[in-house]
Structures are given as structure tokens and as C-alpha cells.
């Protein structure tokens, strides 16, 4: 069972565990200022992650990196930094993880900027 290993904002009414739920009406919300980040380990049944889908709203700029959960001395490997449109709806972005080194055991999603003071991630799915 995957659990989120790191999040920079906590609101007990919109917990970070919401990003692991397929229900898009529940989300993890940031609580002011940027950047905010969340790290999700690769699921046990995924030996080599191919890509990650992120469903988000209110996010202007997002960065995706591969990180090592246990070996924190490893520098994160950048996968992509992407600027999104200001659509007032949930946007699903796909990022290719196939080039990550073997030591990367989790993906870190960083919201670098938003269209307002708050942003949300509805779901993160590594496949």
C-alpha cells in the first residue's frame, strides 16, 4: 500500500493522502506561498515506472523529479518542468519516467507557481 512520504502543506480536511485516491473530487490543497511539494513512492507492483499522471488544478508551473526515499544524499533527477494553462478545470499531465536511474524510488511533484494563492493536486498515479 503506497503512502505519501513527504508533503509541504497539511490541512486535515484536504489531506495529502487524497492524491492516492482515484476520486478526483478529493484533493490535496496547498495553503499559501509557493513552492509546495509532495513525494509519492513507486507502487510495489511497478518494477520500472514508465510514466506518472498528475491531475491538478490552479497550478501554473510544475516540476517533476525522481528522488530516492531512503538515500537522501542523492540529488533529485529532474524529469520535467512544465507551464500549464489557466483552465478552470482539472488538468491531467503525463510525465515520462523511463529515463530515471534505478536508485530513484519515488517521484516528487513540486508546484512552483499557481494562478492564485492556492493550488491543488487531485491525483498522482505512477504506472
Amino acid at each position, binding site marked *: 500500500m503506497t503512502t505519501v512520504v513527504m508533503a509541504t502543506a497539511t*490541512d486535515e480536511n484536504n489531506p495529502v493522502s487524497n492524491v492516492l485516491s482515484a476520486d478526483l473530487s478529493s484533493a490535496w490543497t*496547498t495553503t*499559501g506561498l509557493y513552492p509546495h511539494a509532495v513525494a509519492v513512492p513507486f507502487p510495489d507492483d511497478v518494477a520500472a515506472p514508465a510514466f506518472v499522471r498528475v491531475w491538478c488544478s490552479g497550478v501554473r508551473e510544475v516540476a517533476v523529479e525522481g528522488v530516492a526515499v531512503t538515500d537522501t544524499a542523492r540529488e533529485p533527477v529532474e524529469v520535467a518542468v512544465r507551464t500549464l494553462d489557466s483552465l478552470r478545470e482539472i488538468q491531467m499531465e503525463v510525465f515520462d519516467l523511463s529515463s530515471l536511474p534505478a536508485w530513484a524510488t519515488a517521484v516528487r511533484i513540486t508546484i512552483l507557481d499557481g494562478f492564485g494563492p*492556492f493550488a491543488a493536486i487531485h491525483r498522482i498515479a505512477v504506472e
Partner: protein
Amino acid sequence: MASLRCKCVLVGGPRVGKTALAQVFQSGGGLFPSNYSMTSAVELPGVDALRTVVLEDGSGASSTPASPVAGQVPEHKVKTPLEKALELPSASVQFFLYDTPGQPYLRELAREYVDATCVLIFVYDVTSIDSFEWIREWAELLSADNALPAVGMVVANKADKSDLRAVDADLGLHFAKSLRYPFFELAAPDASAVDAAFKHLAEAYASHYQDFVSATRALAS
């Protein structure tokens, strides 16, 4: 304690009292700068200068941004104010106050700090019609860029100088209403009035957060 964090930018012409307002709020009234010294850079209080405003209604939120201010300010001075926290209630708003220079030739610098993610405080001086026109220009500039923040307030400072008044309260109120911001007339040395204005701003910010949460949930349907 549960907390929201708020980037709060003070904008307005020279000598309207932005720095005084920031320092009085930050210090809880202990520090009113009686000698004018022009703000030449964007000043951001150090992290230990955080002012925490605690609200009665619980929003149940807290945050630790990955690096809340690193890399955002080209120069800053670390001040020595007191962190003031009110006790008990379940929500709080921590303000990061950006005090911008008011001189027109430094407007470009100040402009970089305002965007839709911050909370804006327009400050003008009731004894100066120019200072009122100046923030009207600012508002037009920001609206044209779609950068006018959703949460903010208009503060008419030096309201104690009634014999020198040049801007009617009605004008200020009308301007604030056009932006959907609350309007406060006060004098910066009056710490309780300054506190009340910031508390109102904190409530508006917390309410904006709750609206955002509700809207976010509704997006999926």
C-alpha cells in the same frame, strides 16, 4: 497550530506610510518610525519577524512551504521585531509582508512582487490627492495584466490629519468597492486600528481558501 501563509505586498506612493503600517503591525504597535527614511529596496522581514494573526473560525490548515522566501527577494533587511501570536483559535494566518518602495522610478521593482498569488494592500495618504491617483493607476496597470489579486484591501492612512484632508472617504470607499476590497481609514500610529485592518484581511484570506477548497471539490463533477 493550523496556519495559512500569506504573501502580502504593500503598494502605494512615496511617504504614504507603507513602512510605518508594516512596522506597526509587525511590532504590535511598539515601533512607529517617526523619522522618514525612504525605502529603497523591497524589504522582507526575517522569518523570526513573522506576524501571526489567529482567527476564531477553524480552517484546520497548516503549511510549511518548501522554501517560502528563498530566491524571491533580491535584497532584504532582517529586522528585529517581535513575533506576536494570539492564543487558542484553530486557524491562523502568517503574513510575509513585502514593503515596496513608493518612489515612481522604483515602480518597476515594486511591480515584480505583485501577482495573482499575493494579497495586496493599497496605501494612500488622505492628505495627498496625488497618492490616491497613484494607486488608481496601479490598479489599472494590474487589471490590464490580469494580475490584480483576489484578496486585498485599501488603506487610507493619516486619517488623523483631518485639517489637511484632500481625499474624501467616499472616493476611497468607491475605489475599494470597484476592486471588491475592504476599505480602512486609519492612522498608522493607532496600533489597534492597524491590527483590526490586518485581522479583517486575514479573515478574507482564510475565507478565500475555503472557497478555493469548495471550488476544487466541485471541479470533478
